[in-house]
């Protein structure tokens, strides 16, 4: 994760775009909450800026 965050940083991407969470199969509610939290947060960041580059 730390290495990945470094690379994302070099590319100028927010490290908040990549999440790491540990959720057990029995933690259904936690899974749902985390997913919601994650999509809300990513939506706030907006679309991936790389998407508009055709040369990458």
């Amino acid at each position, binding site marked *: *994760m*730390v*290495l*990945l*965050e*470094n*690379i994302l*940083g*070099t*590319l*100028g*991407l927010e490290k908040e775009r990549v*999440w*790491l*969470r*540990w959720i057990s199969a029995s933690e259904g509610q936690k899974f749902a909450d985390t997913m919601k939290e994650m999509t809300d947060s990513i939506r706030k960041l907006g679309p991936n*800026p*790389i*998407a*508009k*580059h*055709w*040369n*990458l």
Partner: protein
Amino acid sequence: MTQKVLKVKDNDVIGSTNDFLKHLLSSGKIQALLVPQSTPSKKVAYPVLIADPKKLHADIIAPILPVATATIVSKMTKVQSPSKPIAVVMRSCQICALIELVKLNQANLTNIIIIGVDCPGTFPMNVYAGFQEKKTPTQFILETLSKKSTDAEQYLRSACQICKDPIPTHADIVLGFYGTDIEKEIVVEAHTEVGKDLIKELALEEQQEGKNREKAIKELREEKTKKRTMFLKEKEGIKGIEKVAEFFDKCVNCHNCRQACPICYCKECLFDSSVFDAEAYKFIRRAENKGLFKLPSDALLFQLGRMNHMILSCVECGLCEQACPNNIPLMDVFIPAAENAQKQFDYHPGKDKNEKVPMIVYREDEFLEVGEK
């Protein structure tokens, strides 16, 4: 450590190092010697494995690193170690790479005796092979070592100019060219019992002034650190999607850099697999999504993927840059990335055999800031 000196006969540095190596090979203590030796054309010096002392005409000063010596030693020892010792003559960066490969279970040091040489740096393969000056590249380096001129500096590969440490730290024997009058004597240090045993019967003389070498090494390291700090500052600018994309614009996805890298050892690289082959409609769908996209589309992904895989063990030998057919100055990006990543993990590739590669150790107290808050 035992420190002795090898007297240089008639100012012939190469000849004297060859006499030393010949005696070593004839002693019966080693069965073969891996050492750089010029090809018949004299255009390049490759590592050669020599069994017959009469065939030895090595050039351990020749400023060229055509291939990763660490990879050669890996190929020679990974399947089965030699039954009797083999001595390998290596530069500092390659010893570091070899240690990393040992940690990654890709090489074995059983019956491998490392003879490290002080490294004044190497020229790019094409510069060395097409050298037009009256003097040979080796003569240029000898003049640097004897402090007669600094002309060699202009030809050095960028990786060598800002080398982290040109002095080998993990060798059984070190042949030292710094802190001595190289036209008169070469320093021979034995750092291990194996090394001591190997040089004990050779005609070497006692070292008179060991302090000179210590001082010279300190000065050399300081000078390199200064250049390195400047380099890191200069290259800070390669950040952000536009700049990174522009930097890799000339990458044709040939994967030569991966082939040349001593650390990239994967038998099958993901980027050589068929993982990026897909049905035509998937390509078309992608084109429709964006309007257009460049092909091959996985060049930058390959560069960043490779970096993610090897950067913690990167010894900054610069062979990736030398291998690039389009002369992308890869060190401009890889050295700052290595510096950053290795600092975060407080990891020093190739410096300690017992220091584990960060990716195979789990430490509960590490990077608590990553992930769930």
